[in-house]
């Protein structure tokens, strides 16, 4: 069965500092991995994805994520956090043979000025 774990309910970081939001997954076969961000009263916005190729993928708003097959992880990173990055972040996975996404429970990122 497919699953996603986001071990941190909340991550706090000071503006200008680097941030990491953790995600680990379980899937049979090759994974397709995604990060989405959700602002209050708005839908999920796609940030980035890993399908194949380079383990470091870059996405919107300066975010990037690193795929680590041996650790089954796909952590979201940003070199310098902004207050406007404060939101709820979801990691999601699907396998090659299905189209439904399995989401983690989300991590609330709080960036302090």
């Amino acid at each position, binding site marked *: 069965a497919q699953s*996603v774990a986001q071990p941190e309910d909340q991550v706090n970081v000071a503006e200008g500092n680097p941030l990491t939001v953790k995600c680990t997954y379980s899937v049979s076969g090759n994974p397709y991995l995604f990060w989405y961000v959700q602002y209050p009263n708005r*839908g*999920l916005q796609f940030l980035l*994805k890993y*399908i194949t190729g380079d383990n470091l993928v870059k996405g919107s708003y300066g975010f990037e994520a690193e795929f680590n097959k041996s650790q089954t992880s796909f952590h979201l990173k940003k070199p310098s956090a902004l207050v406007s990055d404060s939101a709820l972040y979801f990691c999601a996975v699907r396998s090659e043979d299905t*189209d*439904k996404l399995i989401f983690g*429970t989300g991590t609330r990122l709080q960036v302090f000025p």
Partner: protein
Amino acid sequence: GAGVSQTPSNKVTEKGKYVELRCDPISGHTALYWYRQSLGQGPEFLIYFQGTGAADDSGLPNDRFFAVRPEGSVSTLKIQRTERGDSAVYLCASSLIGVRGNEQFFGPGTRLTVL
């Protein structure tokens, strides 16, 4: 261009009533998905359409839930005999098919409250 739209944005109903939630996907997207997001949780898959047919309805919780997409564009999620436990935000997403690893684009959701 226009994104995925969902109506209504909010729906309040009484236990036992019937509700319909509508989703308008991005033009040209043949794949359409419904998810349900309860408070403090990530979205949970309900059903997936390719064109007019349901390709995977394994996430529908019981037979009170049903979805249609008669012309391969707009979709309606129907819930009969609503229960308080059905209260959640219902999200719709669409994507292209035939593109490996294609991302899904989400609408703003319909917040359903069952009193």
